[in-house]
């Protein structure tokens, strides 16, 4: 396959960037999208040009490191697929492919296609945990959890923190990501003791980071590579309303 790539190049956080066009030849349809970029980078290196910087690590769809806004879609055109699991057979010979970084004020660009997602970590630090120290915990089977509840919590827990929800959302909202953690812990009996404080603090941090506000468009869930459901967002709001009404936390 011969392709034309239009790739966002940006030297560093403080520089302006632009789209640069690269023709690329001889791509095998069995390559993954990132392997196609590897090929381009090897070419660039041999030509003495700077290779394109992009985030990636496990290349099996679980670490959440890869990103890329491909042809106008977060993680490209295939649903339920991270960029690293996207294969070139989903493109046609002669195609032009645009590749851009996640766009959000809360995700500033470090370089080329690499963005800073540390805002997500800070939101997790605001309350995405159950406060138990190592040791001194009850036996694992002491508290039975209905399978249906455990399964639901699991569904929420599968979030890989890649940021596709923010990238796809017209408003740059991070609520699907935040709600996944809030739901997981709110559903489990272990998470009950801190449920109010957790949702209050995580939502507050989400706002501080400069993410937009959810308007229930649904693009986040549609583009989520692991299928986090919008039900979690509703759950976050229930938790938020309950917390604001019942908690004794004053700002």
């Amino acid at each position, binding site marked *: 396959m011969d392709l034309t790539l239009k790739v966002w190049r940006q030297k560093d956080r403080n520089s302006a960037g632009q789209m640069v066009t690269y023709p690329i030849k001889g791509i095998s349809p069995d390559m993954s999208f990132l392997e196609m970029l590897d090929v381009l980078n090897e070419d660039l290196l041999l030509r003495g040009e700077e290779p394109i910087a992009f985030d990636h690590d496990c290349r099996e769809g679980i670490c959440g490191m890869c990103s890329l806004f491909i042809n106008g879609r977060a993680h490209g055109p295939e649903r339920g697929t991270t960029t690293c699991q996207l294969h070139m057979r989903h493109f046609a010979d002669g195609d032009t492919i645009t590749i851009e970084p996640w*766009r959000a004020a*809360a995700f500033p660009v470090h370089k080329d296609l690499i963005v800073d997602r540390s805002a997500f970590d800070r939101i997790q630090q605001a309350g995405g945990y159950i406060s138990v120290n190592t040791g001194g915990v009850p036996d694992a089977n002491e508290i039975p959890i209905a399978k249906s509840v455990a399964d639901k919590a699991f569904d929420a827990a599968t979030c890989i923190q890649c940021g596709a929800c923010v990238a796809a959302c*017209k*408003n740059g909202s991070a609520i699907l990501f935040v709600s996944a953690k809030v739901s997981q812990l709110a559903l489990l009996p272990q998470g009950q003791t801190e449920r109010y404080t957790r949702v209050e603090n995580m939502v507050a941090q989400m706002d501080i980071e400069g993410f*937009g506000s959810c308007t229930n468009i649904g693009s986040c869930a*549609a583009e989520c590579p692991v299928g986090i459901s*919008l039900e979690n967002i509703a759950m976050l709001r229930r938790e*938020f309303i309950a917390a604001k009404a019942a908690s004794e936390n004053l700002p």
Partner: protein
Amino acid sequence: MNWFTKTFSSTVGRKIVMSVTGLFLCSFLVVHLLGNLQLFRNDGGEAFNLYSDFMAHNGLIRTMEWVLLAGFAFHIYDALVLTRRNQAARPIPYQNNHPEENSSWASRNMGLLGTVILVFLIIHLYNFLIPARFDGLDPVNIDDVEYENLYAEVVYAFKQWWYVLIYVLGMIALAYHLIHGFQSAFQTLGLNHKKYTPFIQMFGYAFSVIVCLAFAAIPLYFFFFV
């Protein structure tokens, strides 16, 4: 900030305000429509003029007008605040973007639809409410009592094609606004349930289409049949 203002100035809190006011405005639509159905009575506007007189002088209704105004104000204010915030959340747009692959047009254009509705609303108030309240209308006698003839005003307005067009367009915008907004309000309030959500979505769709069709039928009726 105290806990209250903090709650309602957070992104989630503001959306709650928008959903509550939005649903309240939906209830107003129902009341307004039911009243306006008087226009279809073939009585030369008698029932409608009685109804409008009642609306203009009933204390409860007059009070509710202020609540309604507040509803609009909060709905619009929070929409503005959130829209500005959302624009700031993505300062650099995508060069190539295909949101149509993952969301509906109406859901992404609530601000645009809302603005169209607001413009329509201003025209609508200018047409009917302002003259009725402040300028005084021609009198009409019903059972020897003198009322203001708002009906005549309606007939006059809807004989002009551009008014009809504005009203129909306004109602199309409202329909799309509601198709997303109605069910979205429930999601915002956390009401998402495997059993009830499909019903809410279906009901919301039907509500939006029926209410707006009925409203749009009024100018069309007068233009073509009266």
